[in-house]
């Protein structure tokens, strides 16, 4: 029961660099989500996807790009990283297709932008 795999788990980069965080699910569920977690803010939704080739903005999408060419993959790209994007990023998908919003989370990707 692998569920969701995020990579890399840890990444240090410099301001202005492009970074891609990968998310892979083994269930082929339709919906996938990207959240960022910051102290004092909890988790905030960046982007989500309802199916392959269908994506939509969440609460904090600026500075991020997503794609979903395959159902099982949902990469998140920071095209030009900024210090304010230092955060822990979580990918999530519903536990089942009918789980009424209950999300299952990956272990997170901790990104530091210097």
């Amino acid at each position, binding site marked *: 029961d692998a569920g969701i795999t995020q990579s890399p788990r840890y990444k240090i980069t410099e301001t202005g660099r492009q970074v891609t965080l990968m998310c892979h699910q083994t269930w082929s569920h339709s*919906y996938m*989500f990207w*959240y960022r977690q910051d102290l*004092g*803010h*909890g*988790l*905030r*939704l960046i982007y*989500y996807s*309802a199916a392959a080739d269908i994506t*939509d903005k*969440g609460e904090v999408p600026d500075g991020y790009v997503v794609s979903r060419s395959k159902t099982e993959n949902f990469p998140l790209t920071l095209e030009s990283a900024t210090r304010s994007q230092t955060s822990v990023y*979580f990918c*999530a998908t519903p*536990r089942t297709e009918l789980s*009424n*919003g*209950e*999300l*299952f*989370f*990956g*272990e*997170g990707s901790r990104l530091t932008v210097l």
Partner: protein
Amino acid sequence: AQSVTQPDIHITVSEGASLELRCNYSYGATPYLFWYVQSPGQGLQLLLKYFSGDTLVQGIKGFEAEFKRSQSSFNLRKPSVHWSDAAEYFCAAGGGADGLTFGKGTHLIIQP
């Protein structure tokens, strides 16, 4: 706008004492409600959820939560905490296509 409020940023409880973590939501209709727990350096684990029906729901690790429509609240409780309960706790609401809205979290500290 949808929102979830956890009024307590930190809570300190003695081991063996009872615990209540507060959560209030603001939604157009009654959303699905969740409590998640996050241990240091880990992902989020679902403790319990409320969809409908009995307003007192039981979860894992001895936790329970009570939904009160009149107060727009979904408080988490445990009768006797253990040192291993020290963690960050998140209340969340939603269930639609756009995922969950999370509170800012409550950091639980257990005193020996």
